């Protein structure tokens, strides 16, 4: 037997999308297909409308998605996507179906995924996604912590590991890496430094300070190894 049971209590994603778009004008949602049959399709929300949609999903009487279970980030670097398209072509005078590979360029972006359930009505999940404009300078997204407190630490973790900046987050600091850490280790193109553990220790500072106390000719001998 199959060990998971699909949820049938919930209305379809298309109905939810229509209701959100009628309740919140100017909001445009996309439904992202999922090739895995058991997995859930997701709602892609424009970053500017994220907070309003989240509030709607939480407060709507039919949905009541009061429980934000899982929040996670995904890194999508710029890539060429190859897709097979079937095309009808004339081959030697006979019409045949030919597969053609079409290359499209996917622009790089970071994505944040929220898995929402309802504890009151016991249904779910609805998968909500938001995307940043790029991976370098426009990595801002609205924080949904004001709507679901449970997202607080998880959004901090995404900021820490992916570098998504959540506007409106009450306490956006690194949570797993140390505060002085540079870079975002969960990104696909992250390269580890040669020496992870190096940080200027008080010992190095003491050596530099100590130089002042030596005469000029002795200074050449004391060479503290301070890395750039």
């Amino acid at each position, binding site marked *: 037997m199959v060990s998971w049971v699909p949820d049938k209590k919930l209305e379809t994603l298309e109905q939810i999308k229509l209701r959100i778009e009628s309740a919140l004008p100017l909001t445009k949602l996309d439904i992202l297909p999922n090739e895995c049959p058991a997995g859930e399709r997701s709602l892609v929300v424009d970053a500017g409308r994220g907070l309003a949609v989240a509030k709607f999903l939480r407060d709507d009487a039919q949905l009541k998605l009061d429980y934000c279970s899982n929040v996670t980030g995904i890194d999508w670097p710029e890539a060429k996507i190859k897709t097979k398209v079937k095309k009808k072509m004339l081959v030697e005078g006979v019409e045949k179906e030919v597969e053609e590979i079409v290359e499209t360029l996917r622009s790089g972006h970071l994505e944040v995924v929220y898995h929402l359930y309802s504890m009151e009505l016991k249904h779910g999940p609805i998968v909500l996604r938001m995307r940043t404009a790029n991976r370098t300078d426009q990595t801002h997204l609205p924080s949904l912590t004001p709507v679901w407190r*449970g997202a607080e*630490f998880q959004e901090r973790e995404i900021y820490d590991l992916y570098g998504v900046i959540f506007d409106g987050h009450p306490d956006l600091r690194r949570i797993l890496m140390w505060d002085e850490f540079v870079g975002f280790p969960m990104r696909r193109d992250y390269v580890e430094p040669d020496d992870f553990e190096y940080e200027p220790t008080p010992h190095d500072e003491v050596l530099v300070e100590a130089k002042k106390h030596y005469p000029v000719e002795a200074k050449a001998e004391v060479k503290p190894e301070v890395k750039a």
Partner: protein
Amino acid sequence: MPPKSFEVKPKLDESGASIGELLEISMGPHHPSTHGVFRMDVVLDGEKVVKLKPVCGYLHRNHEKIGENISYLASMPYTDRLDYFCSMTNNWAYALTIEKLAGLAVPERAEYIRVIMAELTRLQNHTSLIGFFVHDMGALGTPLMYAFREREKILDLFEEVSGARMMCNYMRFGGVRVDVNDEWIARTKQLVANYGRFLDEFETFLNQNEILLARTQGVSPLTKEQAVNASLTGPLLRAAGVNYDVRKVDKYGIYSRFDFKVPLGEHGDLYDRYMMRVLEMRESIKILNQALRDIPAGPVMDPKAKLRGFRPKPGEVYGRIESPKGELGFYIISDGGPNPYRYRVRPPSFINITILEDMCLGHRVADVIVILGSVDIVLGEVDRCQPI
């Protein structure tokens, strides 16, 4: 800069005038009551907590990045290391997610074995948690040793079937690794039959204990709204009176076949959280009795399941189970390759400490230790560590 162990700050009233002193102390990271390497920045007004910030990540070794760079199967032993008290349930959550992704079926006998393993895990986790909990209250040693005596019996059963006490690495996509024999089932039946007596004994010592009542009743109550909004799961959530158990809601595995109840608390205080564990163990014993009675013969692995060179079709999936600490979930994105494109763990103990500050505000510094003990955190899971 290393954190200062303490600092004195002026206490200001609304107009900004100094009316006393506040003490900022750093509890942890090397302190036995923090259950691992965990730190809390606490600001105290006398003995009262006015601010508390949890600091974690001391064990962080980026479990998820490693998961993205190794094959699907190779992550299975790594999941043991997340919550090293409950490796069986961690295995199950991961196996269930991949089964959902690849559409694999699990043989009947394997489903029963999984339920037995998960409920035994719940028994030993809750037992040792209560031991730690009263240990944090000052009952040094004895109750914890009573708990560990029982826990060790369950770990012996795990060791016999999987080869390891704690790092079991037992489940596979589409079943379990090895079958259990009749002698093992007989021994487990024996253990389950005796467990109720042990719980009776434990409850006699603790339920009406004057110190336990004084330290727990009315301390750190949580409302339903707070608990739901902060994504609390597991016994902590149910102690606040919210009826939400993934075993009942999702009915994953074969949980729909068993007759068991979901105990609920009223106040969400520490006493309710303690009682919740005791009552859940009673329900686990009920499930175990039914599962051990009904377990059928048969294979324990789906013959179609492929372990080596396993490449699921592209897609994404979120799978979750009720682990002893709360909702444990895995989120996997497959791009059709041998490694997952994205491998994410939803760790219950990490998310349960989101409102640790709210739980502790206004209570005394000695209560902070007990409150943290009642949350039931394991730092391997909070920090996503990867001990080798």
